């Protein structure tokens, strides 16, 4: 198939970027979106041009490294019939002759490093603030020693699925990282291991979220709609409930 790409090119963090147009002629519909970008880069490199910088790692939809806005939706979510990451989006969902805009995640807290690569360390700041449980190292405890109710374990798992790709922020009209933060909060708050730090965690993570420059949530729902792991919007309500309760606790 033939496609026309309009790709955001930006030399570095401080440079002014713009959309550049490229044409590709023999794209196979079995290619993933990233393989198609690889093809473009091969083409650019042989012609002596600068390849397009983009992030990727596992290319299996499980690491959260990849992510660009395709035709106006994060991970090209609105081109695909199923929830997907950019690496698992396939060219068969695009029409022959399609014009495809490719842009980086855009958010105040995710500055562009180069072309389609953004700096997502703002997410790391949120995790560092409390997205973990404190445990003494040593041999792993026996799994059955802390039983977890099935429905809570399921809810925790649905949220633990978050791969931290940042699509929620990219899709949010407020540039809010609330779905990401809520996924981590909901994951840990529904498991016995998460209880001791439950109150201090939510306060610290929300404070970090606001501190690194994410916007506030307006309950729009764009985040959950593009999430490749289908983290539900309800998680944000759980974060809110936990935060309100935590404000009355001294920890």
């Amino acid at each position, binding site marked *: 198939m033939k496609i026309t790409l309009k790709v955001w090119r930006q030399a570095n963090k401080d440079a002014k970027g713009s959309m550049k147009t490229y044409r590709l002629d023999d794209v196979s519909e079995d290619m993933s979106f990233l393989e198609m970008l690889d093809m473009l880069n091969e083409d650019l490199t042989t012609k002596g041009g600068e390849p397009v910088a983009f992030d990727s790692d596992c290319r299996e939809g499980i690491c959260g490294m990849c992510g660009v806005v395709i035709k106006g*939706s994060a991970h090209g979510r609105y081109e695909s019939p199923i929830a997907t990451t950019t690496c698992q989006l396939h060219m068969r969902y695009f029409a022959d002759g399609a014009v495809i805009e490719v842009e980086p995640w855009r958010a105040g807290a995710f500055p562009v490093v180069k072309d389609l690569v953004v700096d997502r360390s703002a997410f790391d700041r949120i995790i560092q603030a409390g997205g973990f449980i404190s445990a003494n190292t040593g041999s792993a405890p026996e799994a059955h020693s802390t039983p977890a109710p099935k429905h809570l374990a399921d809810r925790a798992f649905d949220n633990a699925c978050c791969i931290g790709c940042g699509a929620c922020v990219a899709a949010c009209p407020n540039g809010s990282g609330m779905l990401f933060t809520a996924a981590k909060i909901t994951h840990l708050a529904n498991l016995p291991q998460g209880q001791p730090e439950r109150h201090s965690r939510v306060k610290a993570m*929300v404070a970090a979220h606001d501190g690194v420059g994410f916007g506030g949530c307006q309950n729009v729902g764009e985040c959950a709609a593009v999430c490749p792991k289908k983290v539900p919007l309800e998680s944000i309500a759980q974060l809110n409930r936990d935060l309100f309760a935590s404000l009355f606790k001294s920890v």
Partner: protein
Amino acid sequence: MSVQQKAVRSTVVKKAIMALTGLVLVGFLLMHMFGNLKVFAGPAEYNHYALWLKQDLLYPILPHGWFIWLFRIFLILCVVLHLYCALRLTQASLRGRGTPYVRRKRKEQTFSVRWLRWFGLLLIALISFHILMFTTGTFTPGFEYQFEDPYSMYVGAFQVWWVFAAYGVFMLLVCFHLRHGFWSAFTTLGANVGPSSRLTLNLLAYFFAALLFVGFLLPATAVFLGWVI
């Protein structure tokens, strides 16, 4: 600043303040709508109710005429808090949003949330206008300011076509603002616990928005068409 202090000042708490003050204002609108519907009961009923509200409500716990001022102060406080949090959150959003996209597709955003902030600002202007007309009597198209006879002010004003038209627009903005606001308030307060509560809250939001629109426009339309004089 300690973590506790940061959490208290967080966007989530500002949203909760907006939710609570917003719901107070929705409650006020419902009460106001109920009062307006008394136009259908005739001038005596309507005026009696209006004067009771302004002079005798909560008497003798409070002296005559005190309730209305305490209530006004409370409402103004709610509006100010709502506005202050909205401004701070908008500031955070502008910063959070960063450079705009060249192309962006929106799937979930409703009309009411996209215009939420603008409609909110417009509402302040329209509410001020409303107060200048019926409360202070500074601006009186179609009627004369009479404290003792609010019925005649209501009827006089809505016989003027542009007052009626402007009122229709005003109420439409209120209802759009409330459509997102209602669902968002309950979600912010933690009531969105699953897909079915999401549906319920959204349906309730549509219901209250529609109820207020119909409830406010029914008596105004009746006056405009000359059914009530």
